[in-house]
């Protein structure tokens, strides 16, 4: 037990077919410390964790090279379940919760508290009866320890994403004998205050002696929470640092391998407010956790409008409602023409495109290639990228390939080529494919929802710059929804803040922090004064 490291991964090498995604990577984590794992999109962070958990993808693709040591002893972790029994827990990048189960049932999934009964004496543990009372009191305890006051009998379905994240953490904490917890981008979906709470919870967990591996793209969080840091780049170990002896600037440089650049910033300008591109009246959207309850606003032609607000307040509901991805009602006009709500194809035909915040759900066809994903909507909706031979329409593979290669280059999508399945891309690179697909539609009007969620600082800059370029050079009107106020302020002409599903105020990007803060909590600044 007196080993220096709870976990040591030595010289890990992993190939997916011809491609080496990890080579000779070493990771060391001490008991009770918070260890940050950093790297650009596609650097191999999730893959390294998949190796640690013995995920089936790893075994199915030829295993890996190197060794894994727990408490100083070499081990073979054969499956996620095996990892769990060896004391390693994971809070996933994608939620691993069952929507139809209650919070309790999710926390206790496959670790149910049971009572013996006559049948189970005969047929074994699987026949034991669930003890719901004991299960929910254990769940209650775990929820309390992450500061969640939510009722343990609530069903997960329809819960705001921030809550789900904490339920996942509660589930991991509830496991007995846990000595190492992995958080894969837990803060990507959280608001700032939730992220703060998460960091407090992580620190409390670490104090109790459990080591934490923390994967994130937010460097300020790293500086706040981590004790030590490992940085990967292109599947190789760059360095292992102590928090005390480094700075955000150094971290950024090490990740990207070049001198870190500042955030994007654009010249403030006055957008002529004479032509209305999108007019929305009395919009209601039934998107669970992000309901919109009667919002009216105008978007002027040629501007970038930001929509901000806390998670669960309805900012995501607005683009999803206008695009009819969720049930919505109200009056919407696009460039003077009425847009029928309830018909997603109509919105696309009218020249509106959207980059969804939900990559896995409506965003991407995961078992299709990158190029097919990029061309898909343009092909379906506008009939582009098709060659007509008489009545038959064939896919124009040449044109698709060309467009895909251009997009891969412009957005710096890290992949092995346009034919790679998008399901095998890293999280951030999937996001870029979504953006590429929207751009391929050559829309007049673009909704981007959380465009930089889960992508690294280099890529973030690239995405924001691309948006500005589209706006300035091609005159595209853009509405950007984001939880990161900083990002909205850096490129938007006006920023609209929503709270409780209603519009609170529209502010200029240079309005004071206090004004934004008040608006986010539902108070109009002039009311306050």
């Amino acid at each position: 037990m007196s080993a220096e490291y709870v976990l040591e991964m030595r010289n890990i090498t992993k190939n997916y077919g011809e491609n080496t995604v990890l080579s000779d990577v070493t990771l060391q984590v001490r008991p009770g410390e918070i260890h940050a794992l950093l790297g650009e999109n596609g650097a191999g962070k999730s893959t390294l964790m998949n190796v640690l958990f013995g995920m089936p993808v790893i075994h199915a693709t030829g295993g890996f090279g190197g060794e894994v040591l727990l408490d100083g002893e070499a081990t073979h972790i054969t499956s996620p379940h095996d990892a769990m029994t060896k004391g390693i827990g994971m809070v996933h990048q994608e939620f691993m919760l069952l929507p139809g189960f209650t919070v309790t049932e999710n926390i206790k999934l496959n670790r149910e508290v049971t009572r013996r009964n006559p049948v189970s004496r005969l047929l074994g543990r699987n026949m034991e009866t669930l003890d719901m009372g004991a299960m929910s009191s254990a769940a209650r305890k775990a929820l309390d320890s992450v500061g969640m006051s939510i009722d343990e009998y609530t069903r997960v379905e329809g819960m705001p994403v921030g809550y789900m994240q904490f339920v996942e953490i509660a589930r991991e904490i509830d496991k007995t004998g846990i000595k190492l917890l992995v958080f894969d981008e837990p803060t990507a979906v959280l608001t700032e205050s939730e992220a703060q709470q998460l960091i407090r919870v992580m620190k409390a967990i670490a104090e109790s002696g459990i080591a934490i591996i923390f994967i994130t793209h937010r460097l300020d969080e790293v500086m706040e929470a981590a004790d030590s840091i490992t940085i990967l780049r292109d599947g190789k170990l760059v360095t292992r640092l102590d928090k005390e002896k480094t700075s955000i600037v150094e971290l950024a440089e090490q990740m990207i391998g070049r001198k870190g650049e500042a955030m994007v910033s654009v010249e403030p300008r006055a957008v002529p407010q004479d032509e209305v591109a999108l007019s929305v009246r009395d919009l209601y959207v039934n998107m669970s956790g992000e309901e919109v309850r009667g919002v009216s606003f105008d978007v002027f032609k040629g501007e970038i409008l930001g929509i901000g607000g806390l998670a669960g307040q309805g900012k995501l509901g607005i683009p999803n409602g206008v695009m009819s991805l969720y049930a919505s009602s109200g009056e919407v006009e696009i460039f003077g023409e009425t847009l029928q709500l309830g018909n997603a194809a109509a919105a696309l035909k009218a020249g509106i495109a959207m980059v969804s915040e939900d990559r896995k759900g409506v965003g991407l066809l995961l078992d299709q290639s990158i190029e097919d994903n990029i061309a898909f909507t343009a092909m379906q909706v506008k009939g582009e990228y098709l060659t007509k031979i008489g009545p038959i329409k064939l896919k124009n593979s040449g044109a698709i390939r060309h467009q895909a290669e251009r997009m891969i280059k412009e957005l710096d999508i890290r992949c092995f080529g346009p034919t790679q399945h998008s399901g095998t891309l890293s999280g951030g690179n999937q996001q870029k494919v979504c953006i590429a697909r929207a751009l391929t539609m050559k829309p007049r009007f673009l909704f981007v929802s959380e465009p930089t969620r889960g992508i690294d600082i280099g890529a973030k800059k690239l995405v924001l710059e691309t948006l500005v370029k589209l706006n300035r050079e091609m005159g595209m009107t853009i509405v950007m929804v984001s939880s990161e106020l900083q990002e909205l302020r850096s490129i938007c002409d006006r920023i609209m803040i929503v709270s409780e599903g209603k519009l609170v105020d529209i502010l200029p990007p240079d309005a004071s922090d206090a004004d934004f803060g008040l608006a986010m909590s539902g108070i109009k600044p002039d009311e306050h004064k």
Partner: protein
Amino acid sequence: MRDNVNSGIDTAASKAPVRQKTNWGRLFRENAVTIMFVVMCIVCLAFSGQSLSYVMYELFGRLSRNAFIVLALIIPIVAGMGINFAITIGAMAAQISVLWVIEWGVSGLPGMMLAALMTVPLAAFFGFLIGKLLNKMKGQEMIGGLILGYFANGLYQLLFLFIFGNLIPLNAPGLVIKGSTGVANTIDLSTERGFKYALDGLWSMPFVEATHLIFAVLFLVVVVMLVAKKIKTEKALTYMGIMGAFAMLLQIPAVASVFSMVKVPMVTFIVVGVLCLFNTGLLRTRLGQQFRAVGQNRTVANASGINVDKVRVIAIMISTVLAGWGQLIFVQNMGSFQTYGAHEQVGLYAGAAILVGGAGVRKATNGQAILGCILFHLLFIVAPPAGKNLFGDSAIGEYFRVFISYGVIAAALVMHAWSGIQKKKSAKEALTE
């Protein structure tokens, strides 16, 4: 520290949930299939010209022979494997057992028990194979199952047409028709070698007495549970109230006369009751929780360490064995069965019945199974005479039967999709009411 930890998320908490009210429109939409069937049953009943007591007599007969097999569908539905052909395969296993029990000449209750015993390894083995195969085509269970069902039927025919009676000689009279190949078209259980009414005939009672007896037993159970503090007082009182009211109702001669022709095969219904308890009990165990988890999301279940493939195989095996027993109950009541068609029919009817009861392709309860069974068979009884009375043609009634059973599955699936679309429409309504 606890205080500020909490405040971070509580502000969001108080705003997030959407109010829930009883919404009749929604309730109607979600149960559209069931409601449509209730209406159809009432209309047909009115036009059938059949007396209520005859309808009830028929209904109870059909319930006693079909309820078990419909209940066998619950576990695989909950485990996310849809309504699949495991029922058909289980029935095949039962029919193979019946053939051999008759061949050996074990009759009556011992015959039935022997057949039930034989069915277990056979059906379990078939179920194991199906489970393995379905695991290879996850997500396509419904369509893959259909094709596999055809294939299995081919094998079954090979067995009954070519192997039994030819390669393996059968000696019992009536099993093979002289001069032709293979097993005869119908297998008769009413001979001295068969086991017709082996279960039904054990103990049957007129309806009113039977209900009194059952209520008395249930009453005792509730009281015992109340004393042992296993049940809340209000709940116990409600149960007792309902039973009391029903018993009173039966005192009215007009009501009692409706059930005058009904003879309740007690043992059969007890077996059905036990199966209901089995389903509920099983779903409350660790294994049951695994079924539900796997049914909802295999990836999540897998990540939590559940052996998804194994759980699915177990679900199918349970279902095939139960379906096999269900088929035995069916044939002992009917007294004969179509050698080459009975299993197909039973799978189709069971699937249709549970959908009528309001079950989905992923959610099903005992109540839905029983309700569906009642409605489906009620329509079966009253539709042909109603068709005849309305259109003057009994063929229309026959046509109706077939139409119903196939139509129901299609209709239920379409209506599911439809209620999904309806749900989307009224965003403002849903949020402001």
